[in-house]
């Protein structure tokens, strides 16, 4: 049975969106998060795939150098960064669903949690970059260290952009009428989850093995 959740509308502030585990499949031209953000995310995923490929090629060409990087990297740091990113991704997903259910207070709280965890990731990564540079593993130390710093730096730049977009949306939830809530709310969340996916593949290349 096709069921669409009834959503309480608050004075026409939020255009109609649906949220339910039993909602119907979307049309080809109506992806979750909107076409615009899926185009952006698609291009970014292609760019990240090229980065992963380059790192993998460099790894096969310099196994000793990458072994040195892997040995120098603390797996607890990798796991802490992963936990912060996943935790933030979960909180943002909760915020999107709360917004769709018109639970604005819950959405704001979830956004706040997501932003705090995301900022935690940024702070820890900045510390990592500074610590590595002070330990003599800055850019130019070796090809393997360059690969680590540039690949995670590329990801870091995306995280910062995604956080700015999330903060922009979070500050406006419940206060401003979004012209296109699917793009504004779910689209920015989609970009954030793209950062999760990119990190998921960076993690094994440097931290796990």
């Amino acid at each position, binding site marked *: 049975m096709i069921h669409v959740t009834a959503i309480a509308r608050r004075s026409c502030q939020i255009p109609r969106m649906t949220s339910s585990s039993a909602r119907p499949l979307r049309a080809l031209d109506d992806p979750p998060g909107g076409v615009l953000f899926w185009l952006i995310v698609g291009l970014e995923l292609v760019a990240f795939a090229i980065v*992963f490929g380059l790192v993998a090629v460099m790894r096969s060409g310099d196994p000793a150098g990458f072994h040195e990087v892997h040995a120098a990297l603390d797996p607890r740091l990798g796991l802490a960064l992963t936990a912060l990113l996943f935790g933030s991704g979960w909180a943002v997903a909760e915020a999107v669903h709360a917004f769709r259910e018109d639970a604005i207070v819950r959405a704001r709280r979830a956004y706040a949690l997501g932003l705090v965890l995301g900022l935690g990731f940024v702070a820890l990564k900045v510390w990592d970059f500074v610590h590595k540079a002070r330990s003599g593993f800055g850019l130019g130390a070796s090809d393997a260290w360059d690969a680590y710093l540039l690949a995670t730096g590329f990801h870091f730049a995306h995280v910062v952009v995604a956080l700015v977009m999330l903060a922009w949306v979070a500050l406006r939830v419940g206060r401003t009428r979004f012209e296109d809530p699917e793009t504004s709310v779910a689209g920015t969340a989609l970009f954030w989850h793209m950062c999760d996916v990119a990190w998921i*593949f960076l993690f*094994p290349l440097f931290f*796990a*093995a």
Partner: protein
Amino acid sequence: MEHLAARTKRPITLVVLLVLALLSVWSGRLEIALALASLKALVVGLVLMELDHANRVHLAVFTAWVVVVAFGAWLLAT
């Protein structure tokens, strides 16, 4: 019941992702870590990026990207 399942789906996803990340480090092998990374990426895609409700073409394209990246990284790195 469906509403409860929808509510618990995302916290369970977080726990699954964290457990898989721990297993990746614990395994210490690239091929296992990449296989687990594929699983994690698919979980994120299905639940957090909501591809479970998207058109099947979108899900197929995303799954293809995950498989190509994981297999390609393993092939190029070893």
